[in-house]
């Protein structure tokens, strides 16, 4: 049994589908921050069999969680303050995701324009499809995951 200590202040992402923790880590840009992060993969779960968990010690408001539901709409977000869970919530798919996903269409203006924020809008909530605000190229979780991995 693996034991990871409690965090005082931050975010715990629970019920991540096993294997998706690193994708979420990537989309939250945690590789660019110096937060303490625990990535727990394949934890035993009564409901899910196996699940991933991400614990991030940080100001809970500092993380842009818009892309979490794009990767896995089943994730539970626990907001931790003073070592206690103060809020537990599911995240709806964001209507717009800014500065997280990257458009991979080589014909898109975002491929050359300096300093341009990559923006995606939710085109089809049922199928989790986002489109680039600039070129309308489709981005769904499956396609992006293939590229990322």
């Amino acid at each position: 049994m693996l034991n990871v200590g409690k965090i005082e202040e931050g975010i715990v992402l629970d019920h991540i589908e096993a294997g998706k923790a690193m994708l979420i880590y990537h989309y939250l840009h945690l590789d660019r921050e110096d937060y303490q992060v625990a990535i727990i993969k394949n934890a035993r779960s009564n409901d899910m069999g196996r699940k991933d968990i991400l614990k991030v010690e940080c100001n809970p408001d500092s993380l842009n969680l818009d892309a979490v539901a794009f990767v896995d709409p089943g994730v539970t977000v626990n907001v931790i303050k003073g070592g206690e869970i103060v809020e537990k919530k599911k995240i709806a798919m964001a209507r717009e995701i800014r500065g997280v996903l990257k458009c991979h269409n080589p014909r898109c203006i975002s491929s050359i324009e300096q300093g341009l924020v990559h923006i995606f809008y939710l085109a089809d909530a049922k199928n989790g499809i986002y489109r680039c605000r600039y070129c309308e190229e489709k981005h769904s979780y499956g396609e992006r995951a293939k590229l990322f991995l």
Partner: protein
Amino acid sequence: MRHCLTPLDFSIEELDALFDLAADIEKDPSKYAHACDGKKIATLFYEPSTRTRLSFEAAMMNLGGKALGFAGADQSSAAKGESVADTIRVVSCFADIAAIRHNKEGAAYVASQFSGIPVINAGDGGHEHPTQTLLDMMTIRQLKGRLDHFTIGICGDLKFGRTVHSLVKTMARYEGIHFVFISPPELKVPDYIIELLNEKGYTYEECIKLEDVITKLDLLYMTRVQRERFFNEEDYVRLKDFYVLTEKLLRRAKEDMYVLHPLPRVNEISVEVDKDPRAAYFKQVQYGVYVRMALILTLLDIHVD
């Protein structure tokens, strides 16, 4: 401030008003000859163009205004690495309205986000070409007297043909429109257009051979297979002459089936078709000037009594 990035920026009622204005300009151009005295249009063409750039400049001059700009990325600061955002900020100090053409999709949208003047999308890569759509629709309206209840055949490069994407999205809003998409499998209409048609319940069919469907069409929109959109020359060579509309083939079409084309035409319409009264592609060019005049007046909020 209002921009024209896609024809969907305008409601059907606004489009009607725009076409009414264009028709009035056609009827009495002298009435509008000084409507834009002292105004300037900047034509920012990062990609080569003859018709569209000259049409915008002619439109502004017909209204009494002047035109400035560049015709190629190598003639602009883009060659030095300047962004679209910076270019439009600078140009906003020189002109009252801008028309931008760029080979990258979404360039006009970026320009509109940083601009101090109205921006017209004059073509952004394979994405949209709204003023072409406006002139296509104006041509249909003038020749057919209406914009609804047609079977419209669209033939050629439906994947990269930006004029096609804009036209389908806009015409689909009118009642009784049925699209027949005619293309080789490699150049099929993009999935986002198909999704949009499915979502709204519009009817369409896809096929490969023009001769199989030409008899049922009310309008035929031919497009060129565009060399500049291919990363691979071999694919272009294989597909470039996939469709050729000949006099013989046109004989099978309805007596009033007008043929439209955004031009430039290469081999996809034989020159012998030009003399057929159903060949409407050169009329489109003339209507293009009137529509662009109407658009400039609308975006600058100038009214002529």
